[in-house]
């Protein structure tokens, strides 16, 4: 059997694919090695919901057969990946991270899994998540069927949520990429806290068929990877219209770096306070240094102001209206009491009392948010901001415990989600030994532009190449 070195587990998609096609090892050998590693290491971070070793080995044999006869299916062929456990995998448990759904089984695969199966990507595991993607407003890292999501950089810290397993698994080299989901921050936050590159696509670009619904008008699926280019390669395969997803935009995504605009033709908006003293003190040096790197790319930088809206209240009210309806049976049946986080149980129960008029008003104000962001993007092509204002909090402390004071207003995560905009999280340094990240927010369907700047940033830096202290 070929030797699978530690470097392999931290390779990008392109690097791993090249080695597979050069027959340095077979897909079967690679898959077995990744499954062994994931099963051994993932429990340290409570990152694994279910190993899919058997079906992964079957898929790997098929890929080896294809490669033997020279049948190639694109850059993801033979690449091991994981999915957040809110995606249906045929005839296997899909728990949504929640005890009431621990035995739930669907008879079909989620659309993104179908798409990735077709091109020979190898699904090796379902990854842990915050119960019900945290829609009931959770307050503890322990709000998950698999236990608190722990950070590979420091296991006393949270991996972020709600895509906690995907964040930890990519960071620790347990999968080459993962599919996460975001309603408001669930891709960007764990990506930032775990030091991986995460892409939240435009609303409607990736089909959500077979994914747990938390909010029909906010939910998105997206890749969490080792680099911006890897995010592009995955998005290229999973984007596309789907008549069975009512939110589908009916559009695809073609990764086209050859058509990227020159940096001098791109204007990036930013709020100065974010890169002066707006973030937590420990994160400020890394964020300032990242700002200088962006500046050195030759882009035009322009000061902007984020439109003023009660973003958190809007997202909370819209989720309450939609999740209350989605989980009405769970709440009324009393099974909601089986959830791990009492705060989330209470939040879900209270959703049934939300007046319809409050939901509709929030959705009308959301129209103003969309218009305001449209106006903002008349003056710039994208917005640069800290992905989070500080590093990952301690896993054992309440998530709403007051942290160090910050001057930045935040608001880009809920604002961007309300407007359905794409965003990219890029690791940019460390604070107290924990990853810190910047984010780029773009116009709808301008993922190529975000990825273009992300690629340039990652050519100038190696933060995305850093590895946490994972012992073998």
């Amino acid at each position, binding site marked *: 059997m070929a030797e699978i070195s530690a470097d392999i587990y931290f390779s990008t998609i392109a690097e791993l694919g090249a080695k597979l096609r050069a027959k340095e090892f077979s897909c079967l050998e690679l898959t077995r090695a990744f499954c062994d590693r994931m099963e051994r290491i993932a429990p340290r971070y409570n990152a694994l919901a279910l190993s899919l070793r058997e079906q992964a080995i079957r898929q790997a044999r098929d890929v080896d057969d294809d490669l033997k006869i020279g049948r190639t299916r694109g850059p993801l062929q033979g690449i091991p990946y994981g999915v957040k456990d809110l995606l249906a995998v045929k005839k296997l448990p899909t728990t949504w991270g929640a005890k009431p759904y621990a035995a739930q089984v669907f008879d079909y695969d989620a659309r993104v899994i179908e798409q990735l199966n077709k091109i020979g990507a190898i699904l090796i595991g379902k990854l842990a998540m915050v119960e019900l993607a945290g829609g009931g*407003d959770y307050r503890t890292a322990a709000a998950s069927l698999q236990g608190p999501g722990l950070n590979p950089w420091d296991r006393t810290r949270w991996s972020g949520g709600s895509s906690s397993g995907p964040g930890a698994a990519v960071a620790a080299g347990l999968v080459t990429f993962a599919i996460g989901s975001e309603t408001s921050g669930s891709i960007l936050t764990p990506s930032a806290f775990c030091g991986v590159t995460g892409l939240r696509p435009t609303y409607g670009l990736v089909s959500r068929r077979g994914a747990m619904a938390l909010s029909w*008008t906010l939910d998105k699926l997206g890749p969490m990877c080792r680099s911006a280019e890897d995010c592009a390669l995955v998005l290229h395969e999973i984007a596309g219209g789907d008549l069975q997803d*009512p939110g589908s935009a009916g559009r695809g995504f073609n990764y086209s770096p050859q058509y990227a605009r020159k940096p001098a033709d791109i204007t990036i908006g930013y709020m100065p306070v974010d890169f002066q003293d707006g973030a937590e003190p420990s994160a400020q040096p890394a964020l300032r240094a990242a700002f200088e790197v962006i500046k050195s790319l030759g882009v035009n930088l322009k000061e902007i102001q984020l439109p003023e*809206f*009660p973003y*958190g*209240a*809007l997202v*909370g*009210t819209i989720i*309450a209206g939609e999740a209350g309806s989605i989980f009405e049976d769970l709440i009324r049946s009393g099974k909601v009491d089986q959830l791990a986080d*009492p*705060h989330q*149980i*209470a*939040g879900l*129960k*209270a*959703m049934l*009392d*939300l*007046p319809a008029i*409050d939901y*509709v*008003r*929030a*959705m*009308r*104000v*959301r*129209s*103003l*948010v*969309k218009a305001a962001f449209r106006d903002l993007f008349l003056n710039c092509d994208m917005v640069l901001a800290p992905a989070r204002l500080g590093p990952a909090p301690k896993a054992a402390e309440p998530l709403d415990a007051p942290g160090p004071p910050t001057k930045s207003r935040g608001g880009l995560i809920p604002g961007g989600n*309300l407007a359905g905009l794409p965003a990219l999280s890029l690791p940019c340094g460390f604070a107290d030994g924990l990853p810190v990240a910047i984010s780029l927010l773009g116009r709808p369907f301008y993922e190529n532009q975000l990825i273009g700047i992300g690629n340039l940033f990652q050519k100038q830096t190696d933060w995305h190449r850093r590895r946490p202290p994972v012992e073998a």
Partner: protein
Amino acid sequence: MACDIAAPPCTVRSATYNGRMDISRRKLAVVLTGAAATASAQAPPTPGPDAEIDAARLRQRASAQAIARVPLPMSTEPAVYFKA
């Protein structure tokens, strides 16, 4: 039985676990009642399930009030469309 790793090895035998208690039941009851009263006086009040739901409802109301402060032209339609 849990053993503190830093402590000497556990040597408690089942026969000696509670066989030589030099305290009467009455004295024990007084001690336990006092301890319980002290504990309940010192512990921070933990909200019951109903209080948590009330608090969640209050947060919802506060959100609605914050949203209601945004000037909203009558012509503004919700950011969702029905497609026939």
